[in-house]
Structure formats: structure tokens, C-alpha cells
């Protein structure tokens, strides 16, 4: 059953990710991005990281994609000057994609891949699902990862200030931001 669910969710994630790349309209791309994020969240559920799954749906599907849609509507470019990718660029992209896939799969299917601390191949039944417990996150965030946690807080503050500064009103075609 879990195998079946894994294949469904993986197909959902990868298929809608491909549609993000392929769809012409940015709004459609954002919608497929939501589907892809929800697919990733369901993969998290299969890995019994329930807290991260909720966080993924809240932050990505709830905030990030809404922000994307808002900016798409705001800019409203309507593909007046549709630019198709150049021939050389398309070929280069496909070559890069194939190389990346080959490299990734040569690592994944190599028999001597050893994950650190993992002597024998483990299954989901043999290891404890520590990520299922949300209090574990709190414990680790406030003990082992105290400093990164503080840095993340400052990062959010700096990002907020940066966004306010960047999106201040500009005078018509002038370099300097208008004084308020």
C-alpha cells in the first residue's frame, strides 16, 4: 500500500514539476507549482515527517505561491514580446539535463554508496521515526541548533527590511529613490 502511494505521489510531484517548466502561462506554472509542493508534502507524510508536511503546505502552497501569483498579476506582462529560447540554449539545456540525470543516477544505483552511519540498508520499519514528533523539533531548535535558529530570525528581519527598501517608490526613470 505504501509502495503504491509512493509511486502515486512521486509521479504527481515530478509530473507537475515538468508542467511548471513546460507550461506557457506563468499562472498555470504557479498552479502546477502548488500541486508539486503538495506532492512533496505527501512524500514527507510517507517519511512520517508530519510537522514538515504541514509546514510545507503552509509556507509554500500558502505563502510562496500566493506571492508568485500576486506578482504575476501585478506585472501583467501578457507576453507582449514573447521570447522563445534560442536554439543553442535549448540544446545546451537538454545536454545539461541529461548529464545531470546521468550523474545523479550513477550515484543512486551504484552498489557501494554508503550513507554515513548506515552500515546495512535500513527499511522504514527498523528505524524510529523521530521526525514524527513535533516536540523533537522544538528540543533540537533550542539546544543543538540554537545559533542557526537565531541567525534565521535575523535573516527574516533583514529580508523584511530589504524588501521594504527595494520596493520603495522610485521617481520616473531616475536612479535615486525618491526622498520621502
Amino acid at each position, binding site marked *: 500500500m505504501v509502495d503504491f502511494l509512493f509511486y502515486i505521489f512521486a509521479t504527481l510531484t515530478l509530473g507537475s514539476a515538468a508542467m511548471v517548466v513546460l507550461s506557457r502561462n506563468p499562472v498555470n506554472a504557479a498552479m502546477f507549482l502548488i500541486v508539486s509542493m503538495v506532492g512533496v508534502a505527501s512524500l514527507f507524510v510517507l517519511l512520517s515527517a508530519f510537522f514538515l508536511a504541514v509546514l510545507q503546505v503552509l509556507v509554500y502552497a500558502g505563502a510562496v505561491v500566493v506571492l508568485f501569483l500576486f506578482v504575476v498579476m501585478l506585472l501583467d506582462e501578457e507576453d507582449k514580446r514573447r*521570447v522563445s529560447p534560442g536554439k543553442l540554449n535549448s540544446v545546451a539545456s537538454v545536454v545539461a539535463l541529461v548529464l545531470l540525470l546521468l550523474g545523479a543516477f550513477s550515484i543512486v544505483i551504484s552498489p557501494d554508496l554508503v550513507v554515513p552511519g548506515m552500515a546495512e540498508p535500513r527499511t522504514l520499519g527498523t*528505524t524510529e521515526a523521530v521526525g514524527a514528533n513535533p516536540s523533537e523539533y522544538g528540543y533540537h531548535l533550542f539546544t543543538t541548533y540554537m545559533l542557526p535558529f537565531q541567525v534565521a530570525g535575523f535573516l527574516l528581519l533583514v529580508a523584511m527590511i530589504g524588501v521594504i527598501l527595494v520596493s520603495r517608490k522610485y521617481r520616473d526613470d531616475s536612479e535615486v529613490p525618491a526622498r520621502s
Partner: protein
Amino acid sequence: MNIGIMDFLATSALLFAIGFFGILVRRNTLVVYMCLELMLNAVTIALVAFSRYNGTMDGNVFVFFIITVAAAEVAVGLAIIVALFRRRHTIQLPQLNLLKH
């Protein structure tokens, strides 16, 4: 339950490759940003899978930080795109070639 860590890693690699391809081939800055998000998500799948199969917590906490940074990055990036559109009236990458000439 036959799904092993390799299946999750393969999904992660595929998702990363799709995002990478999108970044190279798309011309709209917004869609390039979406593909960037796809690549970040691919990394989070790999981290959560490692964490789950090892029975440790570190990968999960790392994903927590990745989600935080991604949210901040999207906010700043989209603000930059809006500012760019105000000045250049386009967000198509081939037309943003001021440094090239």
C-alpha cells in the same frame, strides 16, 4: 514496504534535474524563480529521507531552516523583480542584457 532510501533519492534527483532544466530553458524571470523553488524542494526530499532512514533528527531540522530561508529568498527576489519591471518594463531574461553591451 519495499520503498528504500534510493527511491526517494531518485525522486529527489529527478526533481532537481527538472528544476535545473527549467532554469536553463525558461525566459521568464518568474518561472525561473519557480524552478529554483523546485530545486530547493528536491533537496528537502533528500534530507528528510536521509533523516528518516537514519533515525536522526538533524536532516529534519535542516529542512526547517531551508523552508525559512526559501521564504525570505522568495520575498526579496520578487521585490527585486518588481523593481526591475518598474525600471526596464520587462522581465524577459534576453532583454535584460545591460551588462552585456
